[in-house]
Each structure stands twice: as C-alpha cells, then as structure tokens.
C-alpha cells in the first residue's frame, strides 16, 4: 500500500498550484508521512508530542479497540500554524493521500483566514507543535526533579479543568489590579446637566467627600472568574513555580485546541468542499486514481454507515460539506470566503443551515429515555440547530467560576446551573475538587444544585 513519496509529491505540487489558482491562501504546509501508530497517538493526545498522563493511556486503548473493530480510521491530521504541520498515514493508498493532501490545503486556508483561528494564532504564535513538545520536555524535567507522583497530581488537576479557560480572553493575562481603581469623576454631559436642574435632585447627586482617601484592596477575584486554570496558576496559595508552569502549559494547549473545537463543522466542511473541488478540477490525475479518490471522498462525507437508515450523530464532514456547497452555489465563492472568515460553528449553523438543507440532510432531534428507548422527537429547524450546537457551548464543559477566596485561603467555586439547565454530576465533581485541593492546598468548595434543584455544596 505504501506509495513512493515522489509520486505523491508530484501530484501534491500540482494540486497546490491548482489550489492557489482557485484562490486558496495559506501558510506553508509541511507534510510528513507517518505510520499508523503515530496517527493513533496524535488522535489520542491531540498533538504529536504532549505531556504524559495516565488518562491518555485509557484513551489510547479505547482508540486501538475502535480501530481494530474498524470503527475509526484516521486519514489525516493537520496542525494549524506557520508552517502548518500535516501528517499523512503511510498505509493509505496513493489515491487516499492525494485526497488528503487537497483536504489539508482546505484546512490550511481556513486556519489562516478564519477570525477565531487568526486571533489564537496571533496570541500563541505559529508553532504550537514545537511549543507542546517543549512543554512535554519541561514536564519531563519536573518529573526528574520532584518525581512522577507529584507531577501527576498537578496534571490530574490541570487536565481535569482543561476546558475551563476563558476562550474570549487573552493567552497572556496579568494579575488583577491589587487595588480598587479610584472612581474617576465623569465630566458632566448634557443629560446630567439637565437632570441636575430638576427640582430637588441637585443635593443627592453630590458625592460624599473624603471617601476615596485610602485605596481599597480589591477582592480576589473581583468578578466571577471562569478561567480556572489561569486563576489557580496565579492565585493558589503556596503553588510552586513548576506547578504554575504546568497549569499555564495546559491552558496554552487548551486555548490552541479551542478554534478547532469551535469550528469543527465549518472547518471539516470547508476542507471537504475543497478536496472535492480540487480533485474534480485536477485534470492531471489519472482516471483510476481520481475514481479511487472520489470513492474515498464519498466515504468521508456520507451521513451514516452504508446499510443503516439513521445515525445518532451528525457527521461534521457531511453537514459542513453540504452547507458550503449550498453557500457557494447560491451566493458565490466570494461570499463563502467571507463566511469562512467571520463565523464559527454557532454562527455557521444558525445562519446558514436552512430549512431546506436540514430536510434534505434528514436532520432530526432524538431523545433517549432511561429504559434506553430512542425516539425521533422533532425535525423543527431551531431545535435541530440547538441540538447540534448543544455539546459545543462553553467548550463542552459546565460553566463553573471561582467567586471568592476566603480569608483562610479556601476557594469558593460556583456552578452557573441556571444557564446549564441542571446541576453537576456530584460524584465526579467531588473527585475534581479533590484533585484541585491537592494543588490549592486549602479547602475547595463548589456550589451547584441537586436533581431537586436545591443548592448543595460539595467540598474537598
């Protein structure tokens, strides 16, 4: 199956030329042809080299089992950056890897132009793969210095909170200001002038004198803080430098993964649209190779396994591909390029998944009862959109914020159950609190609600 790289290289160069002619624009892409074992690891770790942790071992075994049962085949992985790093599987056929090359160029174009990717690229720089490898090495050094057990305890906590970062915030954040900023007296505007002229209001408006004499020490945190990794790294009492490092490394990697997570449907759809189009227009490909590649394409973008009538998940390749084809067809390529720049999956699904597309794609919402019965509940468009997006809210994690540090150093966390709709899984939450307690080194408490919507406090 393994093809001579030179043949693929020749096609790749021609595909790239074609892609640029059609308007794709991207940072250079470094391709590596890699064995299946590495592809599996990348799928598990998310990065070619990443910090060690036993939980990855569990995912690794699950992945191996899925692959051995044929449920999961990895075609390609691409790491956005400058240059982008793409890995092709050596066991793929020449046709498959030709397809994958075209697919990767679609991703590369997306990663350069999508605003979300661009913002994170600007914050983190273009070589996360190297950063992650450096992180792994620093953790290895920490292991040498303090032993595996202690490093593991810190990673237990940091990785458990992996998704609890502020995706709207900055990668490099400084600590809160130590004092409450003095209130700047606003210049009177015309409204206030008129308001002050109303009878009997003038005295009430004037500020008491001498209140701002001594600066007030600001509370920590001054507002509910959702960036838990950052907060713990900055404010945990007695955190050692290497422990802070680990929290910030996990946070940096988590922020890097966010655009991929938040744009998965768009991104995979865009790449699929482009691999299909590039192959269609690549007249230099021999006919049998083209046919084999198109066969691989239809395997990737089909909604569910052949022989099945329905699937309980939505294939992002299929959905994204369908929506992009529709956009290009009805609004033209220039408009599609704007959409690829401006949206993430939330906007993409809400603005561009129309009634007609949802119907032809056969999208529905289902419900699983406790006795495992599964029913189609509705095909209503809004419900379908929200069901697709539900797992993506808040980076897929419950909204939990640090709200207070007690005078004894105890950390108070609050779960925003109102916006999540229900309380936390108490057993797991307790375990997470135990992880956190070991690095926070003071009591850690978390408020949420139980199934009867009564406030409960979990502690460790």
């Amino acid at each position, binding site marked *: 199956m393994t093809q001579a790289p030179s043949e*693929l*290289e020749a096609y*790749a160069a021609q595909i790239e030329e074609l892609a640029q002619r059609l308007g794709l624009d991207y940072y250079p892409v*470094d*391709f*590596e*042809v*890699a064995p299946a*074992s*590495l592809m599996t*690891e990348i799928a598990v770790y998310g990065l070619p*080299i*990443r910090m060690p*942790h*036993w*939980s990855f*071992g*569990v995912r690794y*075994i699950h992945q191996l089992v899925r692959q051995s049962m044929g449920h999961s085949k990895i075609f390609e992985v691409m790491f956005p950056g400058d240059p982008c790093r793409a890995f*092709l599987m050596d066991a793929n056929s020449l046709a498959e890897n030709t397809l994958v*090359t075209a697919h990767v160029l679609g991703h590369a174009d997306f990663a350069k132009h999508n605003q979300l990717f661009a913002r994170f690229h600007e914050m983190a720089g273009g070589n996360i793969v190297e950063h992650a490898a450096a992180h792994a090495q620093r953790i290895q050094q920490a292991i040498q210095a303090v032993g*595996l057990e202690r490093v593991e305890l810190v990673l237990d906590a940091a990785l*458990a909170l992996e998704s*609890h970062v502020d995706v709207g915030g900055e990668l490099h954040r400084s600590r809160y200001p130590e004092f409450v900023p003095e209130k700047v007296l606003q210049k009177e505007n015309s409204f206030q002038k008129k308001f002050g002229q109303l009878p009997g209001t003038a005295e009430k408006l004037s500020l008491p004198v001498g209140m701002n004499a001594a600066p007030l020490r600001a509370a920590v945190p001054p507002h509910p803080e959702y960036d838990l990794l950052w907060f713990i790294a900055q404010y945990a009492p007695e955190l050692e430098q290497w422990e802070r490092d680990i929290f910030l490394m996990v946070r940096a990697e988590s922020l890097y993964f966010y655009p991929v997570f938040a744009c998965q449907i768009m991104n995979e759809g865009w790449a699929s649209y482009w691999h299909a189009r590039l192959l269609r227009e690549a007249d230099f490909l021999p006919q049998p190779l083209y046919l084999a590649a198109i066969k691989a394409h239809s395997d990737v973008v089909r909604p569910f396994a052949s022989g*099945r009538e*329905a*699937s*309980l*998940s*939505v*294939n992002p390749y*299929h959905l994204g591909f369908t929506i992009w084809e529709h956009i290009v067809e009805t609004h033209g390529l220039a408009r599609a390029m704007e959409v690829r720049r401006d949206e993430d999956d939330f906007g993409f699904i809400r603005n561009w998944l129309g009634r007609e597309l949802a119907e032809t794609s*056969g999208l*529905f*919402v*289902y419900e*699983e*009862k*406790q006795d*495992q*019965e*599964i*029913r*189609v*509940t509705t095909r209503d468009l809004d419900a379908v959109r929200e069901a*697709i997006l*539900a797992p993506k809210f808040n980076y897929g*994690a*419950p909204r*939990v914020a640090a709200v207070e540090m007690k005078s004894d150093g105890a950390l108070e966390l609050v779960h925003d159950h109102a916006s*999540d*709709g*229900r*309380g*936390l*899984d108490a057993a*797991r*939450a307790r*375990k*997470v609190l135990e992880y956190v307690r070991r690095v926070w080194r003071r009591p850690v408490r978390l408020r949420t609600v139980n199934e009867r919507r009564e406030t409960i406090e979990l502690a460790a």
Partner: protein
Amino acid sequence: MIRIAAETPWYDLFSRGARDWLRHNQKVREAVKSTLPELLANENLISQPGNRTVLVPVKFLEHARLRLAESAEQSGAGQGEGKPGDVLRPGREDGESSGRGGTENGEIKFVVELKIDEIVDWLWEELKLPELKPRRSATLDEPDWTREGWDKRGARSRLDRRKTIKEAVKRRSIQEKLGPDVVPITNDDLRFRQLVKRTTPATNAAVIFALDVSGSMDEAQRRLAKTFFFFALQGIRRQYTKVETVFIAHAGEAWEFEESQFFQAQSSGGTVSSSAFKLALDVTRTRYDPSRYNVYFFYASDGENAAEDRAGASASLGALARQVNYAGYVETGGIATFRPRETQLAELFAEMRAGGLPVGTSRLGSQEDVWRTIREFFKEESRKQAA
C-alpha cells in the same frame, strides 16, 4: 511548498500511548493492592496449586471532569429516516436504567492478573512480617538423592542431552576452523548427570484449619476467619515446598470438608470444640506423621464452648498441641461483643501456653486485625525457632 519527508524516525523511538497505558495499569494495580485483604477474602483461593494467579475484574480508572448530572432524558442531533415519534431503538424490557447506550454498554472491561505469590511477597514486605523456618530436627531430616554435577561416564538414563549438544557444538566450532570433516557427536561430548546422597530437612507441611460453624458464628466472623486462614497459609507456603491442607468444621460434631464447602458450612447445633480437636488429632496421626511433617493447627471460634466439654477439650487440645509445630487460636468477634471475662477457649489455650506448649492466641475483631494477628503468630513462631 509541500515537503514530504521520506524519513521520520523520531516517533518510532518511543510510544507515548503505551507509556501512559502502562502507567494507568500501574495505578490500577496499586488501587487493587490497597483493597487486597477484602478482595481476597471473597475469593476461593486457599488451596489452589502452585503458580496461582487471581484475576481481578477492574474498570478503567476515570480521570474525572466536571460534568452535568445525567438527566432522565438525553437528547441529541441525528441524521436519517424517521418521523417525529418514530422509535429508533426500543426500550429494554426489564426497564433497567443502568448501562446506558454508549456510555456503559460499550465500555471495555479488563482484568488485572495478580500472582498470589507476588501479592503475598508484597504483603510480607510491606507489613514486615517475619519468616518461618522449617523445624530442624534429626527426625525430620530425610536422606535423598540429589543431582549434582556432570561426568563423561554414566548410565544411559542419566544422559544430559542439552549439555551433550552444547559440548558437541563447542568442539565442532573449533574443529570447523581446522578442516572440513567434522563428526557430529563423539563419545567425548557425552555428559551424564551425577547423583549424590544428601540429607535435607523435611520441607513438607500440613496445615489443619478448624472453624467453629455453630449458630453464634455469623457471616462476618467466618469471613474474618477465612481471611486470616488464607494469609496464615500463604505465610507457611512461603517456606515449605509442599503444603497440604485439611479443613475441619464443627458445631456439636466435627467433619472434614472440601475447601469449597468449608466456609459455607453452617450448623445450628451447640458448640463442642473437643470434637474438632479430636478429629484434627486423628488426621495428624493417620496422615501427617509428625516425624515427617511440620504440622500447623489453626482454630477460629467465637470462644464459646459448651461448659460440659471443658475437660474433654482440654485433654484433646493438649494431646494435639504436643503433636504439632504450632497451634494458633483466633477468637473472632467485634468490640461489640462484650465479654466480662475470658472465654472458655481462650482460657484453655492460655493454660496450654503456660504449660510450655507451642500455642498462641489472638483476637480478631475486624479486617484490620488480620495483619496484626498474622504478625503476632509469625513473630512468635520465628522467635521460637531462633531460640
């Protein structure tokens, strides 16, 4: 510019996935070990042979994340045929709520294989338990033929083929350098095993376990006894190459049981301890000649014996204690069992001990006591040996 690297050697040097998987397994093992005593008490392990292993079914360790509580109904987006209201998968008949599709049904189960010998070694080290030594006395020394060394001459039956071939290979490798004609095997290559007569201390042991199964011994007490018996046996096994076991259960009468039925045996009758002692004595005399065997006797009871049996028990226990290496008595029963004075059996054993017989007693109230009890017995036994 697309560059396709032909060689990418770095990732072949190590496997991150396997590394983290091994670390996970190590953590599972540690977790299993910490619950070992309870775990082993539930297994039917006592007399299985040789290189025994236990398979402990375990779940993957879960790295916890914050998650929303499961709601009664879960919904998601799907794709395909079907009108609203159509059933895609029928509910389960038994209405079982556990094992939700995808989360637990698809879960991969695995088992950790633990070698009992390793467990016991680990425990002995961890708990710093003393080692037993076989009793050394002239009567226990058995003359025996043992293999020792090789010779170029000997009986055909003792030809060591492996050694012979090795010799032939060595010789041929030298001769091949000198010339082409090499004989495969010559008489000089032959090696025969030699036998010498040596006396070795007897390494046979017999362990007799006796258990009071009268109505007053509840399930928890029997389980404690079982745990204790298991580890006592393991300690003895560490020293003897061959250990035979006898299981005796008694209430008003005593019977010998198979191990598999031993801990299930139960009787509502009264307690006559002498019946067990007599049976043990019988077994010792007929099967385990004390001149050839190191015999250990362990007895577990809640201590209550019929008042009229006191004299009989005293006599038979005395006779038994003279025959065995060691007789151990564990009295089960939690702190809740308030005793105004020593039980009859505790008194009896104390008397024997005062009389200089190799006897020990201990209290076994809970699982945590098992180790203390084991340590007491073994410490005493090894101290006695040292003396």
